[in-house]
């Protein structure tokens, strides 16, 4: 990137709140139903219908506000945002303008090991619109209002990010947070978490912001980075060739990897916001806040620190194991159930389990090996029933099937041999058969010890207790 230029980025994120019903009606919010089967009279904007606020949406917005240490407005107001569009049934969207429910807060991000605090200007509640379907209708447009009225939390950041990388880090952190809080499922393919980016450039050292362009609806982390970088380049090139950036809304085309103009400032709608007279102001008192605070889950940062302290985990493992609430819950369940050393649990999760999950492209919640089954396996390692090496073999079997570790160990006869008599007999035989190596070892070639261990294990099909084998070999070879 050209070093004479500085980039300023602000993000607007729309997170669909994971409520059962819509923000102003009782219709279901479930994704993927047949078009218009989840739109009731209120969602259709029939004459005479009225909105009634879903308390769970308010609750989830407050949960978010608390998680970013924001001011929760004791008095917030819904407003009508007026514009005509076929998938906007009432001809206005119920949103919040002057008095949003969540005020100024912040989110800490980390880029290349450096941490940075990004301000969050506000977060407000609003209803989603329906969808216009332009394909399959032979030149006509179909309207699906299933999504109309789905609650959204629009989270607006301060223009405080200075690179696409920071923007992605912020978006990821926010994505992790809303899922952690259980207020949004974060499914980007289904549009549950969408991002608009405001991008501008200015000569380094200049105080005033440059003219910004808004890039709409960039729905993956990869595209956010690409779209922003592309836009930065476009703006710099434009200015350097004597042009001027105009304030406009641009659309990112991921196929062509470019942004193109959607509408200019002049073409922008005058939304004529005014307080919605059908809804009362939202009043949030201290009791309500206290109630929510008590139910607030442990936040990612706090959990990570606790994992490092309580379980003696390194930074990398702690980060990995707290990357989602489900992952952390799985880990803590394994520690508790297996009664194994936390570090061993962590190693198994970040190692074999995550590798298998990644390979199969599965989330922890869809893991074929439940925490109960993994715990069952780890128990057998810690009580010396099997060795770590055999355990890997057992894990493979568990991943493929539904048997418990004990069932597999039993069926395959993988139980570790701790019978010293049996081990001793094998050792004696190995020593007798390999006199040359015994000579070498006794003349000081310690390396040969490994050879003996290997031979014994081979003879015993890996089932001998390695500690016992070591101890006895050392004594015999003296």
């Amino acid at each position: 990137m050209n070093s004479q230029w500085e980039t300023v980025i602000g993000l607007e994120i729309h997170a669909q709140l994971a409520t059962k019903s819509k923000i102003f009606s009782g219709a279901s919010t479930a994704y993927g139903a047949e078009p218009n089967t989840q739109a009731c009279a209120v969602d259709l904007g029939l004459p005479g219908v009225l909105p009634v606020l879903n308390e769970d949406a308010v609750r989830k917005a407050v949960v978010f506000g608390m998680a970013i240490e924001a001011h929760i407005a004791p008095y917030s107001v819904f407003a009508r945002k007026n514009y005509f569009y076929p998938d906007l049934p009432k001809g206005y969207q119920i949103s919040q303008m002057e008095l949003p429910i969540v005020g100024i807060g912040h989110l800490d991000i980390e880029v290349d090991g450096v941490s940075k605090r990004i301000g969050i200007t506000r977060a407000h509640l609003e209803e989603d619109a329906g969808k216009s379907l332009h394909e399959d209708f032979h030149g006509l447009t179909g309207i699906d209002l299933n999504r109309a009225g789905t609650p959204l939390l629009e989270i607006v950041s301060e223009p405080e990010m200075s690179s696409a990388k920071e923007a992605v880090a912020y978006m990821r952190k926010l994505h992790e947070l809303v899922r952690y809080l259980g207020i949004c499922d974060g499914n980007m393919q289904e549009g549950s978490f969408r991002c608009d980016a405001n991008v501008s450039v200015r000569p380094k050292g200049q105080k005033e912001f440059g003219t910004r362009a808004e890039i709409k609806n960039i729905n993956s982390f990869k595209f956010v980075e690409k779209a922003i970088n592309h836009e930065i380049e476009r703006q710099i090139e434009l200015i350097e060739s004597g042009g001027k950036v105009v304030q406009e809304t641009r659309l990112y085309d991921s196929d062509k990897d470019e942004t193109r103009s959607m509408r200019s400032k002049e073409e922008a709608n005058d939304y004529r916001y005014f307080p919605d007279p059908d809804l009362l102001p939202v009043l949030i008192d201290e009791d309500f806040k206290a109630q929510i605070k008590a139910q607030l889950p442990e936040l990612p940062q706090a959990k990570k620190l606790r994992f490092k302290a309580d379980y003696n985990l390194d930074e990398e493992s702690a980060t990995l194991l707290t990357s989602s609430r489900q992952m952390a819950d799985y880990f803590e369940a394994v520690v508790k159930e297996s009664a194994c050393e936390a570090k061993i649990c962590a190693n198994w999760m970040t190692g074999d389990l995550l590798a298998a999950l990644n390979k199969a492209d599965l989330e922890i919640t869809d893991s074929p090996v439940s925490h109960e089954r993994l715990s069952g396996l780890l128990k057998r390692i810690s009580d010396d029933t099997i060795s770590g090496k055999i355990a890997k073999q057992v894990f493979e079997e568990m991943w493929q099937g539904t048997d418990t570790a004990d069932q597999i160990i039993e069926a395959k006869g993988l139980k570790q041999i701790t019978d010293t008599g049996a081990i001793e007999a094998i050792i004696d035989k190995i020593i007798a058969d390999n006199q040359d190596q015994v000579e070498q070892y006794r003349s000081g070639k310690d390396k040969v010890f490994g050879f003996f261990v290997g031979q014994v294990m081979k003879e015993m099909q890996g089932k001998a207790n390695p500690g016992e084998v070591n101890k006895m070999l050392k004594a015999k070879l003296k």
Partner: protein
Amino acid sequence: MHNKSIAELAKGLRSGEFSSLELTTAFLDRIKRHTGLNAYITVAEELALEQAKAADARLAKGSAELLTGIPIAQKDIFCTDGVKTSCGSKMLDNFIAPYDATVVEKFNDAGAVMLGKLNMDEFAMGSSNETSYYGAVKNPWDVNTVPGGSSGGSAAAVAARLAVCATGTDTGGSIRQPAALCGITGLKPTYGRVSRYGMIAYASSLDQGGPMTHSAEDAAIMLQTMAGFDDKDSTSVDLPVPDYSVGLSRSLEGLKIGLPKEFFGEGLNADVAATIEAAIEEYRKLGAKVTEVSMPSLRLAIPAYYVIAPAECSANLSRFDGVRFGYRCENPADLTDLYTRSRGEGFGKEVKRRILMGTYALSAGYYDAYYIKAQKIRRLISDDFKRALSEVDVMMGPVTPSTAFGIGEKIGNPIEMYLSDIYTIAINLAGVPAMSVPAGFAKGLPVGLQIIGNYFTEDRLLNIAHQYQQVTNWHQSAPKGFE
């Protein structure tokens, strides 16, 4: 039968003097005989007869309520499941509502019979019922005059005995003004007392449904069914509903009546003034004490109303876009054409005028100067009411500056039309309840006395009106040809 009160009819239905089917048929016959008034947009004959039979069965079983079997009519602003709900507009001429408004549901539950849907100004915007797509309604007292609006069909139907009683809605006077011009009793309840769910919105923060009847006694019965909290309407108020009939007979001894001096100034027709003064005199005789009160911000009510109501309506009426229901223009070329022609052809002149005024008032750069300022005035007006109503129990004055005006007389001059609501509009801005009670005649046309009370004192207003109706019989007079 058609001159009887609800209580008398209920008695007759129970004693077997007549059945609901007979009663309903009698009213349907009257409706057919008097189509010239144009009071009904839809006569729901089949449904009414069906409901009457069901009511008779219920009466026979002994599970009837007071309104069971009583033929009423709904203003065509209330959604009625399976029955055309036009709101007086071409826009909804093809609209069969797929659900019942809460108010309609309540009357259905009570077993009332719905005769049909009543004419009204288009989307409740008008003071003369001349803006209706279905044509003007005629005042039964003089068919050359207007019945008032927007609930003109309701007022004319009740006055002409084409329904026992009717629902109305009142945004700036739309129950009280037509009630006054047609010589019936009308009550606009406190904002939030009656659910607005299913009542097609004009100006959401002002709209309120209420009863239109012959007497306060009937109004009490109707309101009993209409009032109450509705979890489908966030602006409805969760307060217990008192028994409106039980307090009707309370004495008025010591009642403190305030006369707002702003209601009796310039512009008030002398005959109307004299009629109102005579009514006040009646109250003195009933033991009331009368003082003068002042409402200094009242003069700002009409300008404030004509910012707030159009602003809200400009958004409320956006859903009529030709996409999902209602009128759609023929062969739209594209989306913009679909919008502009559907709305251009579907809405009438007055509706378009108010949408444009409201859109303008909310536009960037004008919002503070109009909308915010109007809201400030609204607060001042509310304060005036609170102050005055802390000094007196109720306020009284005229409902309208004059009696019914001629059809066509004011329709060409919107400002003059708007000014005819001078005494009613402020009440909606404050949200307090008010009634119009028949108080006599001026040159043969009815005059309405307005009684304005404090929030949620409908029971007191009904009591005060009822006591007056015990000593006068204006409310029983029937227009010639409709006795």
